[in-house]
């Protein structure tokens, strides 16, 4: 595949959750969304399979975010990969890389208009070495306490789509 080609698309309807501090499913004008709190770091998981024609290079995770109340300010998101290879990962324990990648996004001036947060993972360790054709899990977290960068929006961030593409 070539740079920019889409590898995976996730919606709020294809989500799974950690045992605690998880994003909350919601609807906005009948659009399914996941609400990420403005104070507590919350997470959501997306399970997928890397396409067999994935070129093996770096990827970008695009997170399409709206905001429940803010029309200015910044929110911070983090992502991580967990390879679920045949004969490899024991599903009874999480095995994300633990080294999250992160980026910030700015709220649109019009409530209801989405912003895009793009997070790059270089091939290899940052992707838990997920290869073409292999199952994986993607973790999406709002870094609400601003550990990795500025997150000054006090209210919810709403995630509508998560897209993985070739860098």
């Amino acid at each position, binding site marked *: 595949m070539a740079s920019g080609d889409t590898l995976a698309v996730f919606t709020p309807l294809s989500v799974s959750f950690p045992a605690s501090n998880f994003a909350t499913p919601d609807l906005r004008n009948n659009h399914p969304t996941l609400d990420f*709190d403005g*104070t507590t770091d919350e997470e959501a998981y997306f399970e997928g399979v890397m396409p067999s024609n994935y070129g093996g290079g770096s990827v970008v995770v695009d997170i399409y975010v709206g905001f*429940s*109340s803010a029309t*200015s*300010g910044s929110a911070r998101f983090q992502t991580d990969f967990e390879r679920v290879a045949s004969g490899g990962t024991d599903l009874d324990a999480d095995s994300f890389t633990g080294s999250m990648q992160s980026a910030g996004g700015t709220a649109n001036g019009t409530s209801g208009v989405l912003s895009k947060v793009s997070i790059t993972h270089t091939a290899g360790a940052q992707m838990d070495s997920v290869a073409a054709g292999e199952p994986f899990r993607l973790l999406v977290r709002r870094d609400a306490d601003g550990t990795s960068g500025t997150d*000054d*929006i*006090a209210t919810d961030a709403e995630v509508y789509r998560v897209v993985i593409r070739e860098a």
Partner: protein
Amino acid sequence: MAVLPAGDRAVLRQEFARELSSSRSLCNATKTDLQAVVDALDTWLDSNAAAINTAIPLPASTMLTAKQKAQLLVYVIRRRFEVA
């Protein structure tokens, strides 16, 4: 009564932000801005508790507990500003 502990003040800011989010009320105050509001209001209430108490007429002033007076204050503020 002393001012609220910092942890309680932070929880108040969080609860307010969650309420704004659930109603999708527009608000661009940052976390820092909102926390400053909570802190200032709590400090003002602490500084002016005696004045508020003085404003409550007799005989109720001596018949009501401090908690009951505080409840009435919440009721009045809620109705004045039509907040949930």
